[in-house]
């Protein structure tokens, strides 16, 4: 019988297959991918030499350690992004090794490798530039965060509370237009403590000449005049936005600093950030500057369109309402009255015509959603026109219906009820509950 030592030798002589290394790598890779998909934030600390003479808080030091990420994930769920041309992507990011806990700011920016993969055909130079811009954007964000932190701490906040803020700066880019001659890129960011305020930065690259394009380059010597005219005229068309007067801080003129990107049509689109020329509720405002000819065509087209619609003005149903609050009470009362008549007559077809789809029906045994008139008809008048519902509808005082965000509710004691409101500009039934 061999002894343990010999057996051990046998053990050590167990041959290692070539494949082992592969399998190990594979397993690691799979797990990395899983991790990246789940992870959105990685702590970063910036390397900075700040000597704080103010006592306890230690200076923070951060070291960048680039980690290769070669995957990128589509779809950003934190913020809705208008899809213009290429999709905005959430890309993987450089991760940073922590050295000090105090800053507690997380940053996510696309990694250079991802940029390379994404921007096929671009030179390394350009990719580096893009990366650099993202970094810059992130740095500025970090600066803002730090300032905020200082203010926070100096007004009595504790480190603990700061940590709970979970400051996160996320940077990504969106390709606005990409041709052989030029590349127009928007660097966007999100700083989660400033309630979704983002200011985009735009870089318009002339690929042949390797320089950044200016409005002048695109619109010519007269660029200021051309742009101003276009913007002014668009402003007057956009009546839904209450642009500020020039003396209130509103739009005066474009300049060399005016932000713009180039869209797929090759036209510059001037962008004004929130609160730049109008109240914040309007958000970021964009104006496409086309040269004269296109605009004129547009004007002609809109003229034709308005001529057509004026003929319809006699019909009430074409009145466009913005929301439930902008409907005048007589229109509300009329609509409610219609509903009453329809319910009294148990006319399911007419009811279906008054509804918008998808229409929610909250049966007591469980709510469903019908997507078309036919589906509603299938349910049958008996199921819909219950005696309780009829009672509730008839009991409603149509002249005293008051608007709410959810709509107007026709009911006696709360349930059952019929809810209608503004959908697609007109009044329509949105839900029936039992």
């Amino acid at each position, binding site marked *: 019988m061999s002894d343990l030592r010999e057996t051990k030798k046998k053990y050590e002589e167990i041959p290692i297959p070539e494949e082992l290394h592969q399998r190990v790598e594979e397993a*690691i890779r799979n797990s990395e991918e899983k991790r990246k998909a789940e992870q959105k934030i990685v702590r970063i600390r910036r390397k900075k030499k700040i000597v704080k003479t103010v006592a306890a808080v230690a200076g923070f030091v951060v070291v960048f350690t680039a980690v290769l990420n070669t995957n990128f994930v589509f779809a950003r769920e934190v913020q809705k992004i208008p899809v213009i041309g290429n999709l905005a992507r959430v890309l993987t990011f450089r991760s940073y090794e922590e050295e000090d806990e105090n800053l507690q700011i997380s940053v996510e920016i696309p990694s250079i490798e991802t940029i390379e993969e994404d921007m096929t055909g671009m030179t390394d130079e350009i990719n580096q530039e893009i990366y650099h811009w993202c970094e810059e954007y992130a740095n500025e964000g970090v600066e803002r965060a730090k300032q905020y932190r200082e203010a926070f701490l100096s007004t009595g906040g504790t480190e603990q509370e700061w940590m709970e803020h979970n400051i996160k700066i996320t940077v990504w880019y969106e390709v606005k237009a990409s041709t052989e001659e030029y590349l127009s890129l928007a660097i966007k960011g999100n700083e989660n403590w400033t309630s979704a305020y983002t200011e985009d930065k735009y870089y318009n690259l002339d690929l042949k000449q390797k320089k950044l394009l200016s409005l002048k380059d695109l619109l010519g010597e007269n660029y200021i005049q051309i742009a101003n005219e276009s913007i002014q005229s668009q402003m007057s068309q956009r009546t839904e936005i209450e642009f500020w007067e020039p003396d209130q801080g509103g739009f005066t003129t474009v300049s060399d600093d005016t932000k713009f990107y180039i869209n797929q049509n090759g036209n510059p689109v001037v962008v004004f950030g929130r609160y730049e020329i109008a109240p914040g509720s309007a958000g970021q405002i964009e104006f496409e500057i086309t040269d004269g000819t296109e605009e004129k065509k547009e004007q002609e087209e809109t003229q034709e369109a308005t001529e057509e619609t004026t003929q319809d003005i006699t019909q009430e149903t074409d009145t466009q309402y913005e929301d439930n609050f902008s409907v005048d009470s007589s229109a509300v009362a009329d609509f409610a009255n219609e509903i009453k008549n329809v319910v009294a007559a148990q006319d399911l077809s007419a009811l279906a015509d008054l509804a918008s789809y998808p229409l929610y029906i909250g049966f007591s045994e469980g709510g469903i959603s019908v997507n078309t008139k036919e589906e509603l008809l299938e349910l049958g008048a008996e199921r819909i026109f219950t005696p309780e519902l009829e009672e509730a509808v008839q009991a409603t005082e149509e002249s005293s219906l008051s608007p709410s965000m959810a709509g107007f509710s026709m009911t006696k004691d709360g349930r059952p009820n019929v809810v209608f409101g503004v959908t697609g500009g007109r009044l329509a039934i949105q839900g029936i509950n039992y």
Partner: protein
Amino acid sequence: MGKKQYDRIVNYIVENQNKFYRLAFSYVRNQDDALDVVQNAICKALDHYTALRNIEAVKTWFYRIVVNESILFLKNQKKEYLAGEENYADGPYIEKKYEPMDELFDQIDQLDEEVQKIIKLRFFEELSLREIADVVQMNLNTVKAKLYRGLKLLKQNIQEVDL
């Protein structure tokens, strides 16, 4: 915790992959299965890397995972075998290659699960008793006792093998 820890775990695994392979092999006794076991173990480990509280304990932590995966693999295999007996229609039953080692090795395989773990970790992987205690999650004295018992069963001269 976080990236740093993760990377260190990955490094540790990559550096010691041969050891883990051999240990798995000592259980499953063939190449393909051993590869599978190692891969599974790595996946399990990295998926739950946050469970590792202290990076210093990565060794025993990972060994534990490898051992458990090996044993799990065998159990599943046995289940499949038993279930498979009824399903001849599934095609030819391919006999799994069972690598012969020496007698003692086979005898070790016969030992009960806990004792076997301890013997293997001690003599093949040269873990300290403390480390073994961590891997098998028993206290030190229990480990010693089982170790001696195992050696007795294997009829090994306790003096000979330096404990």
